[in-house]
């Protein structure tokens, strides 16, 4: 039991119960004290007031704390939201930048690839065409070589034909010349013998002994003495001079001349 107002706890923490605990020493002087009941009632009232005030104080303090907390939380939540928003925007900017870089890279690659494919296809077509052309040229050359060979062969066979013809021509000319030679020789022999006969005869008439000796030296004169020697020296029984073969003469000449 606390024994006077002097020992009450301080104002910030005093409660109704504290007031109830206070006791007062009985007054020594008779007639100067207060009525006990009045004092007790007054203390009751005061303690009720104190308690009531104390409660209201706590409530107010709690309310203020609550409000303060809300304010703080709201502002922090706003901060958080703001930060999240800023971060999201930054991320979106980064994403856009990277996407642009990727798109650019894609475009460049696609263009390069198209160019390359075009070039490749063109090269392939060119290669194919060149190969076809080369094969064409080769086939052409082969054909031409075959033609040339054929033409050469034709010419050879033609020349051979010409040579053969010329040879035949030559042969017949030779034969003619031989025949002519033989005929001429024969003619000459006949003529000479006729002349000799005539000379021998004339000489014989002049010297019969010389004629006899000459007769013995030439036994074949028997035949020739049948011949009449004409004054111009040609024999009337001379063999005809064979005609020169006429066949293809002009043709041969022209074909020989034509081969240049």
């Amino acid at each position, binding site marked *: 039991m606390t024994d006077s107002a002097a020992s009450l706890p301080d104002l910030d923490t005093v409660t109704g119960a504290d007031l109830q605990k206070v006791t007062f020493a009985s007054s020594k002087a008779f007639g100067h004290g207060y009525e006990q009941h009045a004092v007790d009632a007054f203390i009751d009232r005061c303690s009720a007031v104190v308690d009531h005030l104390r409660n209201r104080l706590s409530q107010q303090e709690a309310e203020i704390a609550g409000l303060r907390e809300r304010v703080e939380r709201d502002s922090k939540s706003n901060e*958080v939201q703001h*930060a*999240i*928003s800023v*971060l*999201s925007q930054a*991320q*979106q900017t*980064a*994403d856009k930048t*990277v*996407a642009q870089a*990727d*798109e650019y*890279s*894609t475009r460049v*690659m*696609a263009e390069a*690839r198209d160019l*390359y*494919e075009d070039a*490749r296809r063109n090269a*392939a*077509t060119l*290669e*194919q065409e060149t190969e076809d052309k080369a094969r064409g040229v080769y086939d052409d050359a082969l054909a031409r070589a075959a033609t040339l060979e054929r033409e050469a062969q034709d010419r050879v066979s033609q020349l051979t034909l010409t040579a053969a013809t010329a040879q035949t021509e030559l042969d017949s000319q030779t034969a003619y010349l031989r025949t002519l030679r033989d005929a001429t020789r024969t003619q000459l022999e006949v003529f000479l013998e006729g002349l000799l006969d005539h000379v021998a005869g004339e000489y014989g008439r002049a010297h019969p002994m010389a004629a006899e000796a000459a007769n013995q030296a030439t036994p074949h004169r028997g035949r020739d003495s049948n011949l009449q020697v004409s004054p111009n020296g040609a024999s009337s029984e001379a063999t005809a001079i064979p005609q020169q073969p006429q066949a293809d003469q002009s043709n041969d000449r022209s074909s020989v001349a034509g081969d240049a």
Partner: protein
Amino acid sequence: MADIDTAALKDNFAAVAAHGGDGVALYFYSYLFLKYPETRDMFPPSMTRQRDRLVGALVRIVTNVDKVGELVPYLEDLGRDHRKFGAVAAHYPAVGEALLATLAHFSGDDWTSELQENWTAAYGVVSGAMSGAAERVAQDEPAWWDADIINVDRRTFDIAVLKVRTNTVHPYAAGQSFSVEPSTLRPREWRLYTPANAPGGREIELHVRLIDGGPVSTALVRSAAAGDKLRLGPPFGRMMLTQDSDSPLLLIAGSTGWAPMKAMIEQVARDGGRRTHLYFGARSIREIYDRKVLEELSDRYPWLTVVIAVSDDIRWDGPRGMVGDIAAEGEWAGHDVFVCGSPAMVEATIKRLISSGVPEQRIKFEEFGEA
């Protein structure tokens, strides 16, 4: 998903998605990076593709939220795959928080505490499946495989054959793929490639085709050099030889779709060889980028027949036309059929095969991925 109100989740998701999937994903990543800035380094500067992937995954998960049998294998693959990004168990709560904040933001006044609870529970199941699968494989395999480029052989201006050496042996099967990150040239960008040799050693051959505008393929074909570093993800894909099958094989490849076929042929040769027909298709003669090898293999293995089809080159004396059309002319009853190439080529080829009598379930295929 026992006591989760999946109907409410689906409705809420539909309402949120109505704001535009890209905007939703944008908010999600902004919240995540704001609250957990250290996660920004796991992603590349441009987030366009990543947002698409996120939306795709969310749609798939929400659509199948009632079909646990389909959902769980997908989630486990996803979780195992996420290890390569450096994702660890601690990241999952952060992602969950960002997801819920996003949903709440777009739901506005429709957001209730029931939705909050349902979504939290659903996310718990998803992240549990993913991180559980990741933890299970953690003992047996690394999160990724480091590799160096040994040699870059540019066969044409847009196709390169890369020789790569890993630090430890990669456990892929012939025909499978893995995702590749060019750490030196394009960090944090991952694309799927298929090795062209059978597994077992540390050397891997990759065939890369330049996709116009694609950052990774362009870098690998045009800028890559010996000494550049790569990271490889776990094995991916189901186009593999069937175990213990000795049916004859029909392999149809378009352009760099030849890579998995080359690996499978090497595997078949190791296993003793079996009757194999390979059809390789290209647009022009220059695009028969591995011609020497095709001829070599055809000479070396009597059980292998190689047919090269060219579709657009007047200088080609061999079969002309689309490789699918030419292959479909054969008789392939009882064959195991594999097809790999561009999406258009694969679709056209499979259609032709089916209409010529090949049963659909005997055909396995793989398409070129995104750029």
